[in-house]
């Protein structure tokens, strides 16, 4: 087998394990469906009636659905590092690190697993959107584009979470930082209001926030008449590039989690 083939064989061994675990205990992933439902049913309905946020020709619910999808993936992914700390507190991590598997393959396996988790979660948000009358775009190419946005976004934020886990190393500190990070990442993005409405300083921050590019890609693919602030190429390039950089950093820090 080639080096690349072996790399992905090992990464997918990690993915396979994660899938077995989701199948055996789907309660965690099911409970993640509650939060997006609250946002869309409460926040979305109120804002739609208030007409407080200018979203051009799009109804506010249509505008917000891709943002809530990205948010639900973000909120799960950002706590992904917790499982790595758990594996360290057992001894699973140490054993994996002493195997001849490259650390980057272990980290990539986790990133891909998070991506698949994201896809499963997005089924709920799609179903919810459908029920609320959001104008969904069922064009196969658009659906594929949306899937790319979900997988890359989940892969990036889960790996970012792993980096934090490698730095703080304890569950308590990790939970604290995770809580502190989620809301700023969410609000400093175009998830529930367009960038053009933000003050300049916030616009700058939201333009370096990968969530913005994930939402942008989703907004152009998930709903009928959705428009993009950036181009498809920029969105994918930013998400993909950020994910690769995060994986490289995490692979370097990962062994340190064991000591």
């Amino acid at each position: 087998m080639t080096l690349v083939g072996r790399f992905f064989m090992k990464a997918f061994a990690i993915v396979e394990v994660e899938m077995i675990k989701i199948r055996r205990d789907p309660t965690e992933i099911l409970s993640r469906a509650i939060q997006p439902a609250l946002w869309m049913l409460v926040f979305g309905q109120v804002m739609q009636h208030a007409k407080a946020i200018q979203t051009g020709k799009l109804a506010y619910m249509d505008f917000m659905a891709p943002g809530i999808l990205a948010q639900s993936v973000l909120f799960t992914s950002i706590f992904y590092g917790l499982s790595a700390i758990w594996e360290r507190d057992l001894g699973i991590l140490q054993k994996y690190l002493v195997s001849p598997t490259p650390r980057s393959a272990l980290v990539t396996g986790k990133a891909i697993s998070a991506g698949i988790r994201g896809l499963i979660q997005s089924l709920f948000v799609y179903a919810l959107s459908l029920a609320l009358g959001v104008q969904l775009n069922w064009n196969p190419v658009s659906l594929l584009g949306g899937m790319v946005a979900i997988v890359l976004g989940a892969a990036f934020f889960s790996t970012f979470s792993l980096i934090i886990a490698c730095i703080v190393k304890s569950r308590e500190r990790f939970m604290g930082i995770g809580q502190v990070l989620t809301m700023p990442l969410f609000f400093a993005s175009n998830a529930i209001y367009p960038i053009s409405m933000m003050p300049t300083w916030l616009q700058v921050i939201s333009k370096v926030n990968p969530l913005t590019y994930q939402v942008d890609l989703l907004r152009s693919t998930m709903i009928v008449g959705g428009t993009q602030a950036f181009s498809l190429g920029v969105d994918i390039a930013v998400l993909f590039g950020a994910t690769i950089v995060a994986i490289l950093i995490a692979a370097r820090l990962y062994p340190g989690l064991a000591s």
Partner: protein
Amino acid sequence: MSLLETHSLTCAFDDLIAVDHVTFNVEKTEVFGLVGPNGAGKSTMIKVLTTLRRPTSGTAIICGHDITQNPAAVRSMIGYVPQMVSADGDLTARENLMLYSKLVDVPSGERKSRTLEALEFMNLADVADKRVRQFSGGMIRRLEIAQSMLHRPAMLFLDEPTVGLDPVARASVWEHIMQLRDTYQTTILLTTHMMEEVENLCTKIGIMNHGKMIAIGTASDLKTASGNPDATLDEVFIKFAGAEQATPGGFEQAARSRRTARRLG
């Protein structure tokens, strides 16, 4: 050439030298028992030898590969069973073995047969498809040792393999370790607190204290060196390791080993 040799191996933390210029060899097919009081540096020694932690200075050569120059090559030659529980409780024994066979480069055509062989070797064939969560402590340990042997490593590192096990489970784990050495000619380095285990089963013993290897030899060598050939190994240990002293990290270590014991028990 020895299978493992260390050269003035040293590993320092911010406030203490956990392994302090240690030089020793382990020969092929030897069962080397590393003993010493808590905080003596045994676990750090294992972490350095298994490439989990880089030495501050000095080095070790394992199976011809330098741990600082080529840690990846070392990792392909060794197996490791951490003190803590390293099998995944949410998976079955078979799934644990299949996963690990991929991570350690067992050829795809042989994964199933090696998994089966490992299950039979460790007397786990009839519980192969049960989740590990339901296993007893001794079964978990046997599964972990089976995992670490899938790629037929030349050398196996076991960090307190019998901690927290009752006498029956302990005897069974030991029996399987010895069987494994006889079948595959595996060289073994392990740490333990059980002097009778060391006496009956290890071909060579190293006593560590304060990061240094203070005595090394067979059980009878050590007894003679202690000045009393009729001493028990416990007495020899106390003589070499001295009275109990407060060592840093004691609280965390105690908490951790009791947690492991609770999980296995």
